[in-house]
C-alpha cells in the first residue's frame, strides 16, 4: 500500500489551490518546512506571510486578511494552533465567522521524538467546543486533498487536523469527500468502528482479521468531527448494537465523546472509546508510541472481543 503523510498531501494541495484561486493567502509561524506550506511560499511568495514564532498574532492577521476578502490558510503545529492561540481562534476567527482555515499539523502522539510537550492530544476537544468552527480529521493523503478543496469552498472558519508520519492511502483520487458525512468503508452487523485520522487504516486491518474469525464489522471514517454525521452514527447503533471509537487523541472530548453524545441521546448502545487515556505523551518513535499507548490493530481486535461480551449481556 502506498503511503503519504497528510501534511505532505496538504502542502501539495495548497499549491494546486493557489494556482486555481488568487484569493488564497497562506500564513505560517516559522514552521513552514514542517507544515509543508513551504512549497506554496516558494511558488507564491507574494501570497505567503511568515508570522514568525507568534501564533496569536498569526490568527489575528488571518482575521484581518479574511475581513479584507482573502481566504486564509494558517498553519502551525496543533499544540500551538489550537492551544497557544485558542482564544484568538475563538474570538478573532470563530466569533466573527471568518473564512480562515486553520491547518494544524503534527497532531497527536505521532509527533514522536519531540515528546509530550509537543504532542497535542486535546485539540479536537478544544476546537469542537467552539461555535461556528468546522473540525475535520482526514485519514489519508487523498482525502486530505479533497478536504482542502471542500474547505476552500466552505464559507466560515475550520480546523483541519493533520499528522506528521506517512499513512497508508485508503482512497482513490475520485473519492467523494463531503463535510458532515462519514464514509462507510466496510459493512457488518456485529459491531461498528468509528475512527478518524491514523486510526482508520488500523480499524480496516482489524476488521479484516475479525472477519476471518467470523465477526463482521462496519467501519466508518468519521473525518468530519463537527458537524458529526449523526445519521450514520445512529443508524450504525441500530444496526450493530455496539460501537468502538478510535482516535489518536485523548478519550476525553474528541471523536469518542462526540459519538457518545449522539448515541446516548438517540439510541443508547455500549460504546468503547479507544484513544489516549487521559495522559500526556512522551518521546519515542511514532510506532513505539502507538504501541505504548495501545493504538494498534491487535488492541482494536481485543477491544472488539470485549465489546461483543458487553453487547450480549
Amino acid at each position, binding site marked *: 500500500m502506498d503511503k503519504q503523510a497528510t501534511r505532505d498531501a496538504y502542502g501539495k494541495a495548497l499549491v494546486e489551490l493557489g494556482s486555481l484561486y488568487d484569493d488564497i*493567502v497562506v500564513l505560517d509561524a516559522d514552521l513552514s518546512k514542517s507544515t509543508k506550506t513551504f512549497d506554496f511560499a516558494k511558488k507564491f511568495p*507574494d*501570497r505567503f*506571510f511568515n*508570522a*514568525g514564532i*507568534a501564533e*496569536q*498574532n498569526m*490568527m*489575528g*492577521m*488571518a*482575521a*484581518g*486578511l*479574511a*475581513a*479584507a*476578502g*482573502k481566504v486564509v490558510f494558517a498553519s502551525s503545529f496543533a499544540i500551538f494552533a489550537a492551544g497557544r492561540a485558542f*482564544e*484568538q481562534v475563538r*474570538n*478573532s476567527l470563530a*466569533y*466573527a*465567522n471568518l473564512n480562515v482555515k486553520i491547518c494544524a499539523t503534527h497532531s497527536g502522539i505521532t509527533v514522536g521524538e519531540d515528546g509530550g510537550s509537543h504532542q497535542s492530544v486535546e485539540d479536537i476537544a478544544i476546537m469542537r467546543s467552539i461555535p461556528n468552527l468546522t473540525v475535520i480529521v482526514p485519514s489519508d493523503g487523498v482525502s486530505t486533498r479533497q478536504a482542502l478543496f471542500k474547505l476552500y469552498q466552505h464559507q466560515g472558519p475550520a480546523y483541519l487536523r493533520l499528522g506528521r508520519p506517512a499513512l497508508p492511502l485508503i482512497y482513490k483520487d475520485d473519492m467523494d469527500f463531503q463535510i458532515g458525512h462519514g464514509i462507510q468503508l466496510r459493512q457488518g452487523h456485529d459491531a461498528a468502528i468509528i475512527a478518524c485520522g491514523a486510526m482508520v487504516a488500523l480499524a480496516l486491518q482489524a476488521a479484516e482479521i475479525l472477519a476471518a474469525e467470523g465477526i463482521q464489522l462496519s467501519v466508518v471514517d468519521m473525518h468530519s468531527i463537527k458537524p458529526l454525521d449523526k445519521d450514520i452514527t445512529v443508524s450504525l447503533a441500530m444496526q450493530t448494537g455496539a460501537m468502538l471509537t478510535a482516535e489518536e487523541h485523548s478519550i476525553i472530548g474528541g471523536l469518542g465523546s462526540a459519538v457518545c453524545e449522539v448515541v446516548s441521546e438517540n439510541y443508547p448502545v455500549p460504546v468503547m472509546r479507544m484513544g489516549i487515556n487521559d495522559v500526556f505523551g512522551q518521546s519515542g518513535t511514532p510506532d513505539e508510541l502507538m504501541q505504548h499507548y495501545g493504538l494498534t490493530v491487535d488492541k482494536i481486535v481485543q477491544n472488539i472481543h470485549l465489546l461483543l461480551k458487553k453487547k450480549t449481556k
Partner: protein
Amino acid sequence: MKEITEEAVAITIEKARQMRRNIIKMLGQAGSGHTGGSLSASDIVACLYFWEMNVDPANPHWPDRDRFVLSKGHAAPVLYAVLAEKGFFPIDNLNSLRTLGSPLQGHPDMRKVPGVEASTGSLGQGISWAVGMALAGKMDKKSYRVYTMLGDGEIEEGMVWEAAMAAAHYKLDNLMAFVDHNGLQIDGRVQEVMSPLPIPDKFRAFGWEVLEIDGHDHKQIMAALNSARTVSGRPTAVIAHTIKGKGCSFMEDRVEWHGVAPKPDEVKKALAELL
C-alpha cells in the same frame, strides 16, 4: 496633505461633543458599560470619521474604504456613537446598547453592526486584525489606510508586540495605531498595575514612526494624521495623551469610571457639562 482649517476643526469638535452626549445617554440607558475610556477616545475617533477617513455609510463594505479597528473594544460606545453620527444606522438605535437581541453588543460585533470592521473586545487582538487588513491592502495595491486604537493598559498584552513586530517587518506604512494614553486601567494607574512606560520608546524600538500628541487637541490629531501619510516604509504610532472620562468633570482621571455607567442624576449632570 490636507489643510487644517478652523471650519474643519469646528466640525470635529462639535461632532465629538455630540458623540460624548450620546455616549453618556446610551450608557445611562444601558446601566452598564465602559464610560471613561469611551470619553477619552472621542476626539480622536471624531477626527478619524469626520476629517480623515473615506467611508460610505450607504455602502459599508465598499472595498476601497479606509478601515478603523477599535482594538480597545470595551470602548464600543464611542464607536457606536460615531457610526450613528455618521449615518451607518439611526441614532435612536443607540438606546438598545447591551440589551438582549440588540446589534449593539457590549463589545463590537462586525456581523451585527454596519460599519464595525472587526469583532474586538478581547484585548490585544484588534491590532493584529489591522495588520492583516493593511497587509491585504498592500497585496491588492489598494490605497486605503487602516487605523486602529489601543488602550494604554491593553498594550500590556504580549500579542500587541507580536503585531507591532509584524507591522514593521512588513513595512505597513498604510497602518496607523493610536494609543489612548489615559493612564488608567481597571485596577489603577497603569504604572502601578503593570507599567507599559515608556510607550514611545517601545514602539520606536519595534521599528515604528512615533508621534506624541494631546489626544484632545483636534489640530494636533489632524496634524498627526497628515504626518503619518508622509511616512514611508513603516507604520506610525501616535501616543495620544488623554484624560479618562474627558468632558465630564466628575469622571475625569478617576479610575472608578472605567467600567461603570452613569446613574440618572449623573447623566443629567454630565449632559449639563456637554452643552
